[in-house]
C-alpha cells in the first residue's frame, strides 16, 4: 500500500493532461461567474477604457500636454477644449490623459513590488510559525505602526519627488498589508486536512507552500492587488496634492487638483475633472476587485 502511495506521488509530479483540464475548467468557471456580474463588467470596462485612453493619448488628443498659451488660460469646456484649459492655457483633457499615464504606471509598479515581497514574507511567516513568524511579524508590526500614507509621505519627503521614488514610497507601505493578508490566509489554510495529508505523504515544505497553500492565497492576493492599485492611485494623488509625489509641470491628477484649489471659487473645471478622474478610476478598480473576489470564491455566490 505504501509503495502504491509513493508511486502515485511520483506520477502526479509532472502535470498530466487530466490535471490541466481540471485547471482549465476552474478558470472557465471563474470567467463564467465573472461575466455574470454586471457591476464587475462595469468596473472592468472603466479600467480598460482608462488604460486605452492613456495608452492612445497621443492619438486621441492633438494638443501637447506642455504647450502653454497665455491668452487661452482658464477657459471653460468647449468643443476645442473638452475639459477647458488650466492656469497656463494648457488643454486640461490632454493633461488628464497624460496624468493618468503617470498615475497608472506608478500604481502598477508599487502594487507589483508590494505584492511580491508581501507574498514571500507572509507565506513564510504563516506557514512556519514559531520564531520565524515572530521575527517577520515584528518587522511587519514596525511597518504597520506607521500608517501607509504617512510612511509614503515620510519616504517621499526624504527621497524627493519623482515617479520612481513615489512608487518606492507607496510600495513599502503596501508590503505589510499584503504580507498580513497572505499570512492570515496561510494560517487558516494550514489547519486544513489536506495540508496534513500532504505532510503525511512526505511533501516538502516548499512544495506544500507552492502547490497547496499559495494557490489558495491567490484569490485574496489578486483582490488585494486590484484594490491596492486603486489605493495607490489615491495615494499618488494625495502625495502630489501636498507637493510631494509628482511635481508640476509633469501632469498628475493630484497636482492638477492642488493647483486648481487656488481657483476653486471661480473656476471649477480644474478641481472637478481631476477629482472625477481620480474617483472614477478608484471606483472602477474597486468594482473590478469585488467582482474578481466573488468570481474566485464561489462560496460567496451560492
Amino acid at each position, binding site marked *: *500500500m*505504501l509503495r502504491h*502511495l509513493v508511486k502515485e506521488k511520483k506520477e502526479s509530479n509532472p502535470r498530466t493532461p487530466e490535471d490541466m483540464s481540471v485547471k482549465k475548467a476552474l478558470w472557465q468557471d471563474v470567467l463564467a461567474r465573472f461575466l455574470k456580474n454586471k*457591476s464587475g463588467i462595469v468596473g472592468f470596462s472603466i479600467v480598460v477604457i482608462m488604460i486605452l485612453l492613456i495608452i492612445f493619448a497621443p492619438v486621441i488628443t492633438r494638443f501637447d500636454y506642455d504647450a502653454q498659451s497665455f491668452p487661452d488660460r482658464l477657459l471653460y469646456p468647449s468643443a476645442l477644449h473638452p475639459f477647458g484649459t488650466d492656469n497656463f492655457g494648457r488643454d486640461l483633457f490632454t493633461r488628464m490623459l497624460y496624468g493618468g499615464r503617470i498615475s497608472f504606471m506608478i500604481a502598477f509598479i508599487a502594487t507589483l513590488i508590494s505584492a511580491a515581497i508581501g507574498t514571500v514574507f507572509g507565506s513564510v511567516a504563516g506557514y512556519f510559525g*514559531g520564531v520565524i513568524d515572530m521575527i517577520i511579524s*515584528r*518587522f511587519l*508590526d*514596525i511597518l*504597520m*505602526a*506607521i*500608517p*501607509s*500614507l*504617512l*510612511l509614503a*509621505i*515620510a*519616504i517621499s*519627503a*526624504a*527621497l*524627493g519627488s519623482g515617479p520612481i521614488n513615489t512608487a518606492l514610497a507607496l510600495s513599502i507601505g503596501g508590503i505589510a498589508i499584503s504580507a498580513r493578508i497572505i499570512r492570515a490566509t496561510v494560517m487558516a489554510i494550514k489547519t486544513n486536512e489536506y495540508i496534513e495529508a500532504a*505532510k*503525511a505523504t*512526505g511533501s516538502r515544505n516548499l512544495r506544500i507552500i507552492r502547490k497547496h497553500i499559495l494557490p489558495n492565497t491567490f484569490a485574496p492576493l489578486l483582490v488585494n492587488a486590484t484594490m491596492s492599485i*486603486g489605493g495607490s492611485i*489615491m495615494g499618488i*494623488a*494625495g502625495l502630489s*496634492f*501636498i*507637493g*510631494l509625489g509628482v511635481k508640476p509641470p509633469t501632469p498628475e491628477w493630484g497636482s492638477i*487638483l492642488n493647483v486648481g*484649489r487656488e481657483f*476653486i*471659487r471661480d473656476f*471649477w473645471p480644474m*478641481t472637478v475633472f481631476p*477629482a472625477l478622474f*481620480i*474617483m*472614477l478610476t*478608484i*471606483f472602477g478598480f*474597486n*468594482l473590478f476587485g*469585488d467582482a474578481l*473576489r466573488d468570481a474566485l470564491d464561489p*462560496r*460567496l455566490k*451560492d
Partner: protein
Amino acid sequence: MLYIIKRLIMVIPIMIGVVIIVFTLTYFAPGDPVSVALGEGYTQEEYDAQAEFMGLDKTYIEQLASYLVHLITKLDLGKSYFSNIPIESELMSRFPVSAMLGLFGIVLTVLIGIPLGIFSAIKQYTVLDYGLTALALVMAAIPGFVLAILCIVLFGVRLRWLPIMGLETPRHWILPIATSAFPGIAAMMRMTRTTMLEVIRQDYITTARSKGLKENAIIVKHALKNCLIPLVTIIGGSMAMVLAGSIISENIFSIRGIGTYMYGGISSRDYPVVMAGVLVMAFVVCVVNLLVDILYAFVDPRIKTIYGIRKNKRKKPAVMPGAESEVV
C-alpha cells in the same frame, strides 16, 4: 493577563524600530540642514560651529544613539531648523485637537459602518443590499481630501451652511470629522459585509439554523462574534488612515493640529519636525494596535490559547516524513 504583558513589552522594540527607520530616512534625505539654518553667506568656521551645535558633525550611529537617548530619557524630539520652540511642546499643544478629531472620526466610522455592513450582508441580493453596496463603492472611491474640497465648495462657499476654517464652535467640527470619517465608513461597511457573508455560510451557522434558532439570535450571537475579529483590525487601520489623512485635511480646513505642523515641516524640508510627527502618529497607531490585540484576545479565546501553548508546541516531537509509514 500574561498575554497583555507580553503584548505590552512588544511595543518597545516596535517603537525603537520605527525610530530607526524614520531616523535613517531623514539622515539620508537630500539637502544640507546646516546651510539651511545659516542662510546665505557664512564662513567655514561658522559652518563647522553650527554643525557641531546641531550635532551633525557626528557619525550616523552616534547621532542615532543620541537621538534615541534624548527621546527616551527626556522625551526630547530635537529642534526645528527654523523655530526655537521645542518640537515636543509644539506637538503637545497641538495634540488634543488632532486626537479629538481622530477619535470622533473613528467613532463615527464604527457607528455607521458596522450596522450598515451587517444589514447589507443579511439582506444579500435585495434592493437594500444593492443600494448600500453601491453607496459604499462610491464612498470608497472618494479620497478624503477630494471630498473635503468638494464639501468646502458646496457647503462653505455656495450654500454657506457651514464654516470652513478653524474649530471655534461645534459647527466648525462637522466638516473635518465627516470628511475624515467618510472613506473609513466605506471600508468598514465593505469589510463588515464581506466577513458577514463569509461567516453566515459557515457550518456552525447552518447548525444554529437547524437547531431552530431565530435569525436575529443567529446573527447577533453566532455570526457577529465571529466576524468581529477582522473588523477589529479595520478599526486599527481606520485610525491610521484618519491620522495620515489629517496631514492633508487639517491643512485644508486650517486646523492647528499635528497634521498642519507636519505639512509645514514637509514643505519647508524641516526634517526634525517631519520625523517627530511621524513618530508621534506611529506611537498612537501602536497604542491603538495594542488595544486592538488585547481586544482580539477577548473576542477570540483561540488567540490567547495560541500564545499560551506555543511553548508546548515546540516540545512536541517533530513528525518525521518517514514516521507515518509505520502507522500506515
